[in-house]
């Protein structure tokens, strides 16, 4: 859209535009915009949806699958959060699957904070009761859980890095709580 110079376009305000924070132990930044699907389907539709999305939808708790900047996160036995960091049209992709499913575009409902550093676990545990140690929550692990009063989806993308997805209306609260916890994480 940026190439339409002079066109009078509405600009979208990102919920965490320009956000940076945290500490030396756990830095915080806003994740780049991405497309997201809330996907629900019965087991017999999983293989066709996997084919349509170009990755194998995970069927084990707390696991994810990634391919080419696209991530499918297991949220429940029939529910996935699919994130595409390249902004691809995933609604179109799953619509062509030919199998019964429910897909909702939640690209703008969610936003995400990237928590990175040796204190990342401690920073998130400031508001989240889950065991995030590497043996229990390895790289690629994901889960829906709580951060203080907000529901979040955690996704460990590297040993020292988590993507914390939350609803955009909770972004000020989630980023603020993480910021406080990240400052404590260095001590």
């Amino acid at each position, binding site marked *: 859209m940026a190439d339409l110079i002079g066109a009078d376009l509405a600009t979208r305000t990102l919920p965490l535009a320009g956000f940076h924070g945290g500490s030396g132990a756990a830095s915080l930044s806003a994740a780049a915009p991405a497309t997201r699907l809330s996907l629900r389907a019965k087991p017999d539709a999983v293989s066709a949806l996997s084919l349509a999305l170009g990755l194998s939808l995970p069927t084990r708790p*707390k696991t994810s699958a990634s391919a080419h900047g696209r991530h499918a996160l297991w949220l429940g036995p029939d529910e996935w959060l699919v994130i595409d960091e390249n902004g691809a049209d995933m609604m179109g992709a799953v619509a062509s699957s030919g199998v019964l499913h429910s897909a909702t575009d939640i690209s703008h409902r969610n936003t995400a904070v990237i928590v990175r550093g040796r204190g990342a676990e401690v920073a998130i545990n400031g508001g989240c*009761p889950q065991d995030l140690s590497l043996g229990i929550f390895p790289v690629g692990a994901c889960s*829906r859980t709580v951060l203080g009063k907000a529901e979040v989806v955690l996704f460990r993308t590297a040993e020292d890095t988590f993507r914390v997805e939350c609803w955009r209306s909770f972004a000020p609260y989630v980023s603020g709580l993480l910021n406080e916890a990240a400052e404590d994480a260095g001590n």
Partner: protein
Amino acid sequence: MLLIYCPYCEEERSELEFRQAGDAHIARPTNMTEMTDEEFEAFFFLRDNVKGLTYERWRHLNGCGRFFNAARDTVSDKFVTTYKAGLPKPDISTLRPATEATVETYEATESNAK
């Protein structure tokens, strides 16, 4: 913090992720239009409020989202077991060691609460 085993996530998670959702194994009548008000009241409102072992529905609300059932002691708050929705009541005699004394008072359980 109380940890509850979710049979769908297959691990213990904090109580903060769960919601209690009333009694389990309540048979929904198939003849509601023919029931008397008293019969409907009994089905819809009246619960036993058991002291001791009870069967409840729980939901892993801020987790996998699934409803499941739990056998729980209302005196000690101990979860005896949890199991997937739709499964029959588990045989408690196989779950409770015969040597385990029944806890009778709140004070007795609180003194050794974990």
